[in-house]
């Protein structure tokens, strides 16, 4: 077959057609704008990896001053919200079992007396640890506040009971997100999640729809070449991807006050790389899928590991090595590192490059498979 240059005119024709169809399909268009907003509200406002005000019951057999000091310290840490007093062990147990409280604080008899005698009395905190993420931050805060709280009460003649400073002065410096604000991590990451979800689904559907409705046969009987059809169909969705990214960045800035330290130009350029990776995958899915339902299923098959193994939901380094390897293949993993790096750590091209090339490799491999499959489906 004689090769002739790709025709811009025909790409433009497909682009216009696709654009009209997109605009006319109100529901899908609404979804494309609605999904980022919905996810922003859900993840941005609802997810908090540092939960506070957890319901706590007290089972106290000692009402001395030290017990009161401890309770006051726990309350002011904001992690514990005292909901009531459990009169007996059994009732405390029931509260924990029913999930009415997250913690039960046991203050034993003679707590104050034993403390004054230097007998190191037990102070028991029972936690409902079915969800480690819910109890973790509160429990680690508890260990620290205990020492600090007592130090103030144990002065004068009691000073000898005061906890001694350790041999090492530990200095913690939480860089890039001093207050540990979850949104700083979640909201930029959401951009990657939303783009993965909509870009893959929409391209795979847009192309499968043509073959399902028989319009592809018609299109290919015209001089339009497969590559022109592909490019023309993809371009409008790149624009949609940028609208989504823009919406989330605006929300990140005005709603969640996420710092934007790095170059936005660099970020916008790398977003194009990421969008391309997802579009390429969508096209490749569409060459495998027989109908729109299958295309949808395949997209979700890809979306789930993306969201779970990329480090969006759970810490990447917390996963076993094999899971990390799967994660390293996914474009979202690298995009998350890039976007968080640029916004929070003011990373430049040199710092993010180790996360750019894996996406480029992904694009290359997926495109090769897609083109090979597409050629075959024609004949």
């Amino acid at each position, binding site marked *: 077959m*004689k090769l002739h240059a790709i025709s811009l*005119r025909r790409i433009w024709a497909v682009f216009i057609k696709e654009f009209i*169809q997109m605009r006319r*399909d109100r529901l899908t268009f609404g979804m494309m704008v609605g999904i980022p907003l919905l996810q922003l509200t859900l993840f941005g406002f609802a997810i908090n990896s540092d939960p506070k005000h957890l319901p706590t019951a007290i089972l106290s057999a000692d009402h001395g001053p030290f017990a009161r000091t401890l309770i006051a310290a726990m309350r002011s840490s904001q992690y514990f919200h005292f909901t009531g007093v459990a009169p007996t062990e059994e009732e405390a147990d029931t509260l924990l079992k029913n999930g009415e409280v997250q913690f039960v604080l046991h203050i034993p008899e003679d707590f104050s007396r034993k403390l004054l005698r230097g007998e190191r009395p037990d102070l028991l905190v029972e936690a409902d640890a079915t969800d480690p993420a819910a109890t973790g931050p509160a429990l680690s805060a508890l260990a620290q506040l205990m020492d600090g709280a007592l130090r103030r009460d144990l002065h004068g003649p009691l000073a000898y009971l005061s906890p001694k400073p350790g041999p090492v002065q530990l200095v913690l410096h939480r860089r890039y997100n001093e207050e540990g604000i979850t949104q700083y991590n979640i909201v930029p990451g959401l951009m990657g999640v939303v783009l993965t979800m909509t870009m893959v689904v929409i391209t795979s559907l847009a192309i499968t729809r043509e073959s399902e409705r028989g319009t592809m046969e018609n*299109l290919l009987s015209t001089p339009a070449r497969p590559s022109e059809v592909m490019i023309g169909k993809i371009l409008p969705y790149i624009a949609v991807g940028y609208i989504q990214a823009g919406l989330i960045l605006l929300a990140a800035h005005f709603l969640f006050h996420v710092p934007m330290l790095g170059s936005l130009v660099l970020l916008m350029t790398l977003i194009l790389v990421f969008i391309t990776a997802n579009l390429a995958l969508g096209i490749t899915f569409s060459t495998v899928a027989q109908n729109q339902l299958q295309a949808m299923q395949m997209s979700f098959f890809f979306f789930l590991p993306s969201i779970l193994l990329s480090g969006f939901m759970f810490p990447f380094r917390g996963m076993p090595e094999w899971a990390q390897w799967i994660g390293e293949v996914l474009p979202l993993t690298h995009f998350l590192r890039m976007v968080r790096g640029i916004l929070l750590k003011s990373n430049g091209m040199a710092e993010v490059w180790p996360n750019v090339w894996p996406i480029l490799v992904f694009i290359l491999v997926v495109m090769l498979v897609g083109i090979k499959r597409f050629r075959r489906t024609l004949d």
Partner: protein
Amino acid sequence: MKRDELVIDVEGVTKRFGTRTVVQGINMQVRRGEIYGFLGPNGSGKTTFLRMLCGLLRPDGGHGHCLGFDILTEAAAIKERVGYMTQRFSYYADLSLEENLDFVARIFGVPKRREAVQQSLEKLGLGGRRKQLAGQLSGGWKQRLALAASLIHSPQLLLLDEPTAGVDPKARRDFWSELHQLAADGMTVLITTHYMDEAERCHRLAYISYGKLLASGTVEDVVRQAGFETWEVTGPELNDLMPKLQAAAAIEQVVPFGRAMHVSGKDSAGLQAAIAPFQVDPYRWRPVPSSLEDAFIGLMGSSEDNFA
């Protein structure tokens, strides 16, 4: 291109899907300005053959030219000059008539696109419905739109794949007048159909079954090639007569036609011997010329026998 020049001239065209041969060594020659009918049972390879002509599929064997371009190596040039109307409506249901035509015109790079689209809308009487979405049209209007779209780039060859399936008789008649007008202006039309009346409106025909070309030529040629002698019988209770006639070896087919029955066979002497016992009152017999339908049903039956 001059009139009488061969627009389609192919030899031995073959297409296989896996181990199945769908089109088997078809030769075809179609002259400019001709309406060429392409007939055959469902699944006989008609659509596959059309797809090969317009460059959608690459033949596995054979060679030839379409509009003077090589069907194997110059598919791109052929696509520019061919209008193809698919069996299934394949324009965009969510675009209006005007947008659909405009899209096709852009793809083909039609000069003075807007004017061409307006003219096309008016010529086909679609002007009043230009803003209507194609998906909301009735079958007849969809077919008009598809025809208008496949004509917008003024092709030299029109390939129509069962264009009148599901279209009412009046719309069909209008459609055929339009085709004859186009052919008179020098366009070549290759059309597949199942309707006998449409077949008879073609200048020439080809009959294909199981991928093989069984007969071709004018209506008379095809009937002659089928080689049938046909007798018509009228009388009461023809249904009782039917199984008795079918039992005779020389009688190849018995087809009821309203209140008459057509009895045909290739062996003239055998046929007459076989019907002789039934040439009694109240049955009335007379020899009739075989119709195209007789010929086709005969061809269909004989090709199935070959495969069995």
